[in-house]
C-alpha cells in the first residue's frame, strides 16, 4: 500500500484530518480500489464522517489490492486521531514547506509511515502505530431522502455563526420556501435562563431547495462545524439530506477527486414533540416586519408580579412529565453523552460482522413501543447505535420490566377484605 500526495493536496488532506478530529478520537484508514477512505465515528455512534479521496487526488496511488481491480486489499486500520493530527500540525506551513507526502506501510507491516518531504532537503517521517479494525461503514442512501438542500458552505457558516459556540444541538425546520435554524433546548435546561436564537433563510439563497416533506430535525452542531470549516475552504457546494426526525441527516460534498459524507443522528420524534409542545407559545418568526405592536402586552404579567413577593421573572414550569434523568456517563465529549438520548426508529445497520446485534435491536424496539403506551411512563433514555442496531440502556431495561410485572408476593398483613372494600368505596 503506497500513496503519494503532491503539494497543495497535502493541505487538503491535513484539513480533512482536522475536520474529522471534531468527531472522534480514532481515525479509520482504509485504502480501497475506489480511493483512500478516512473515516471517524464518535463514541456514541451518533456522528460519522468520511473523506474518500479518489486515485485522481494522488500523485501515485496503490491501495495494495491484487491486480485486476476487483478486490480490495483488505487492509484497514485505525489510528489515534491525535497522532495523525500531529503529522499535519500547522496547516499554514504545510502549504509553504511540504512538497510531497508519502504514506506507506512499513516493511514490518506494523507501522503506517507518513513521510513529509519538505523544502531544503528536510524529510519528516512519522511512524504511526495502528490497530487492525473492522470496516466502518454505515449504510445510508442519499437518494432515499425526501428533502435535499444544496448551498454554498458560506451560507451555512453564516447561519451557524449566530449560535453560541457552546451550543450543542440545533433544530432545523423546513417548510415550503423557508428553512429555520433554532437552538434546541434540552429538557433539563431552564428556558427562562437561556437565550434563544432563531434564524430563517429563504429558499432562494440555496442552489437547490427540494422539500417534499415539511419537517424539523434536531442534531448536534459541534460535529458539523468541523465539516463546515473544511467545506468553506474547498468552496464546494454542501448538500444536506434529511427527512423525518430520527432518521440521520447526511451532509455531503462532491468533487471529482473527493467525496465527503457526514452522517449525524437526529433526535427522534418523541423528544422533539415534547420540545415543541413546550414552545407552543413561541410561534416561528418568518417575517418580523408585520409585527403587531399591540401583541406585546405585558400588563397581565405585571399584575401577577406586583402581588407576588418575588421581584423577578418566574418561568412557566415546563412539564415534561418526567423527573427521571439518567446520570451522564463520564464521556469527554458532552455532545456524545447527550446524544445518548437519541433513538433511531430505523437503525442504520452496518455491513459488518456484528450482525447478531441487529436481531436484538429489533426486539427491543417493539418492547420500547409497548412501554410507551403506558401512561405516565417516563421516557426511556436509551440510545440506539447508528450502525449496529444494538441497544445500550443506561437503565437496565430488565429492572423496569421486573417492577411492572412483579407480582405482589406478600400483601400487607393488617389489611382484611372488608377494609379494602371500604377504601375503594371512599375513592
Amino acid at each position, binding site marked *: 500500500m503506497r500513496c503519494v500526495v503532491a503539494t497543495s493536496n497535502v493541505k487538503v488532506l491535513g484539513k480533512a484530518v482536522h475536520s474529522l478530529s471534531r468527531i472522534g478520537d480514532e481515525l479509520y484508514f482504509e485504502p480501497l480500489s475506489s480511493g483512500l477512505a478516512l473515516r471517524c465515528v464518535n463514541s456514541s455512534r451518533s456522528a460519522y464522517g468520511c473523506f474518500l479521496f479518489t486515485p485522481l487526488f494522488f500523485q501515485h496511488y496503490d491501495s495494495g489490492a491484487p491486480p485486476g481491480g476487483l478486490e480490495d486489499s483488505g487492509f484497514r486500520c485505525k489510528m489515534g486521531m491525535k497522532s495523525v493530527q500531529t503529522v499535519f500540525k500547522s496547516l499554514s506551513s504545510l502549504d509553504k514547506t511540504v512538497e510531497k507526502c508519502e504514506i506507506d506501510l512499513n516493511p514490518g507491516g506494523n507501522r503506517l509511515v507518513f513521510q513529509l518531504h519538505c523544502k531544503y532537503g528536510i524529510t519528516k517521517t512519522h511512524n504511526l502505530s495502528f490497530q487492525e479494525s473492522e470496516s466502518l461503514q454505515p449504510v445510508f442512501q442519499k437518494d432515499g431522502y425526501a428533502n435535499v438542500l444544496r448551498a454554498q458552505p458560506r451560507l451555512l457558516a453564516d447561519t451557524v455563526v449566530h449560535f453560541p459556540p457552546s451550543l450543542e444541538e440545533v433544530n432545523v425546520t423546513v417548510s415550503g420556501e423557508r428553512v429555520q435554524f433554532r437552538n434546541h433546548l434540552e429538557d433539563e435546561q431552564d428556558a427562562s435562563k437561556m437565550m434563544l436564537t432563531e*434564524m*430563517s433563510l429563504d429558499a432562494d439563497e440555496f442552489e437547490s431547495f427540494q422539500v417534499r416533506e415539511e419537517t424539523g430535525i434536531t442534531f448536534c452542531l459541534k460535529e458539523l462545524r468541523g465539516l463546515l470549516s473544511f467545506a468553506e475552504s474547498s468552496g464546494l457546494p454542501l448538500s444536506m439530506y434529511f427527512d423525518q426526525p430520527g432518521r440521520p441527516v447526511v451532509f455531503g460534498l462532491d468533487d471529482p477527486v473527493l467525496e465527503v459524507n457526514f452522517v449525524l443522528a437526529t433526535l427522534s420524534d418523541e423528544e422533539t414533540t415534547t420540545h415543541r409542545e*413546550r414552545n407552543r*407559545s413561541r410561534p416561528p418568526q418568518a417575517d418580523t416586519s408585520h409585527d403587531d405592536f399591540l401583541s406585546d*402586552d405585558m400588563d397581565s404579567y405585571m399584575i401577577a408580579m406586583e402581588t407576588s413577593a418575588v421581584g423577578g421573572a418566574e418561568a412557566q414550569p415546563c412539564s415534561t412529565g418526567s423527573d427521571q434523568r439518567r446520570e451522564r456517563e463520564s464521556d469527554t465529549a458532552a455532545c456524545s453523552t447527550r446524544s445518548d438520548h437519541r433513538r433511531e426508529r430505523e437503525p442504520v445497520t452496518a455491513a459488518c460482522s456484528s450482525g447478531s446485534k441487529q436481531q436484538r435491536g429489533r426486539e427491543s424496539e417493539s418492547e420500547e413501543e409497548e412501554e410507551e403506551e403506558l401512561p405516565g411512563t417516563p421516557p426511556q433514555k436509551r440510545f440506539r447505535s447508528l450502525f449496529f442496531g444494538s441497544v445500550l440502556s443506561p437503565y437496565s431495561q430488565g429492572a423496569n420490566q421486573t417492577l411492572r410485572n412483579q407480582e405482589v408476593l406478600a400483601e400487607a398483613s393488617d389489611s382484611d377484605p372488608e377494609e379494602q372494600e371500604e377504601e375503594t368505596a371512599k375513592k
Partner: protein
Amino acid sequence: MRFRAKMIDIGCLNHFTRVVNTISKLTKTCTLRLTTDKLYFILSDKVANGGVSMWCELSQGNFFDEFQLEGVSTEHNEIYMDLAAENLSRALKTAHNAKSLKIKLTNKHCPCITVAIELPSLSRVSRVVTHDIPVGVIPKKLWNDFKEPSVPDFDVSIYLPPLKTMKNVVERMKNLSNFLVLEANLNGEMNLKIETDLVSVTTHFKDLGNPSWGDNGSQDSTQDRDPETMMDVKVDIRKLLQFLAGQQVNPSKVICNIVNKRIVHFILLHEDVSLQYFIPAHA
C-alpha cells in the same frame, strides 16, 4: 408595558454594539432602565459586586430611528429589567452588516428582550435572525435601589492618562500584587503604586490636567489645599483592570475623582454616552 425600537444606521449600530460590549466586560448582569428619552445600564453597589457600581446613560435619539415605550404606568413611564449584558452583546455581535435592528419587549415563555436583525442575503428576501434574551422585570417598589449615584464630594479631580497606556501598566502590576494605590493631585500628577514584601513599583504620570467643576462645595475646599498634596485610594487591582480593559468606546476624556481613602469615581464621556464607574477603597 410595551417597548419597541428600531435602528437602521450602521454607524449607530456599531456604536451601540461597542457600548454594550463595554458593559458586558464590566459586569455579568446589570439593570436596564428604559425611559422615553434614555437608556440606562445600571449596576448597583451590592456586596456581591465587591461594592463596585456603574451607571451608563445613552440618549435613545442618537441611536434609534423609532422608539416607542409604554412604561409601568403613565406617571412612571419607565421600565426596569435585569439583563445579562453578555447575551445582548452576543446578539449584537453578528449584526455588524445588518440592514436593520429591532428591539422589543416580548413575553414568550418568559419576559424577553427580542432582538430581530435583518441581514442582507443572496436573495430578494432578507435573512432574519431573532434572539430572545430572557429578562427579569423589576417591580416599581424596588426602583429605589437603582437611583443615579451622585458625584461624590471628591478631594481631587483629574483627567486620566490614555487608557491604553494605563491598562498596560496595571496589567503588569496585577502579576505582582492584588491591590493598587491610585493617587493624584490638583497639579495634574497621578501615580499608580503597588507594594509587596519584595518590591514596590510606582508609575508616574504628569501634565494630565484637572477638570474644573465650576462652583460647587468640593471646589472651595480644595482651593485651600496645596495642589501638590496627593489624595489616594487603595483599590482591588482586578476591578480597576476590568474597567480599563473593557473599554471599547474611545472616550474623548476620562475624569477620575478621588475621595481620599474612600472611593474612586471614573466618568467617561463620549458623544452621547456617559459611563460612570465607582470602585470603593479596599478595607
